[in-house]
């Protein structure tokens, strides 16, 4: 059980990039709090297809300094907007295989409405604002960076 004190609140990083496997259990444990009755979490996995093409693998590249600052801003926004106790998000960088975890986000709250809303907010905002780019390799040998048009963006 964690009780954050005011000092920790200012120092703690709640968003991180990781170039190794994301440790879900440890992240989830950081959200434990006796005041929280609900915890919603999200995992983004590497799918074997995208827009009808078979995907063999991918890598994520980030502009690390800005990605970390913007990710932290997003989690801070979620803490301000929703009645949650805590929230965390980690995004992978580097080479990932099919099925690997690309992003994890979680939020704990007294009640489940806020936990779900905050978790969803963090995932949506990270996908649309944090400078991270996906490079996909396809079964047909082609490869390329994904730079979605706003109108082409799909929830994934």
């Amino acid at each position, binding site marked *: 059980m964690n009780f954050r004190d005011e000092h920790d609140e200012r120092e703690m990083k709640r968003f991180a990039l990781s170039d190794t496997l994301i440790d879900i259990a440890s992240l989830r444990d950081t959200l434990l709090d006796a005041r929280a009755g609900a915890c919603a979490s999200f995992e983004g996995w590497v799918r074997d297809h995208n827009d009808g093409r078979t995907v063999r693998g991918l890598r994520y590249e980030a502009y690390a300094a*800005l990605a970390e600052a913007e990710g932290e801003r997003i989690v801070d926004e979620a803490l301000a907007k929703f009645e949650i106790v805590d929230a965390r998000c980690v*995004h992978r960088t580097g080479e990932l295989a099919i099925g690997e975890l690309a992003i994890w986000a979680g939020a704990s709250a007294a009640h489940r409405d806020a936990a779900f809303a905050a978790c969803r907010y963090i995932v949506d905002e990270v996908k649309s604002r944090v400078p991270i780019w996906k490079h996909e390799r396809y079964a047909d040998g082609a490869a390329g960076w994904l730079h979605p048009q706003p109108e082409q963006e799909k929830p994934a």
Partner: protein
Amino acid sequence: MARVTVLYFASLRDAAGVASERLETEAPDLRTLYESARTRYGFALPIDRLRVAVDGAFAKWGDPVRDGGEIAFIPPVSGG
């Protein structure tokens, strides 16, 4: 004349052939700096699809190019 470092990511880096470069530029603002890089490297992405950052924080295309700045052109992101 400003000396700046410019960072290229994702498809911009592939097109430029470098992840970063040091430049001496007379571009008055970030918009002009991007347009000259776009002409030089043949970037496919028009400026209205990008964002720009200076020294690790988002900036505006109309901001002046400051000497010693680190400028990053941010193509549409695709994390998650």
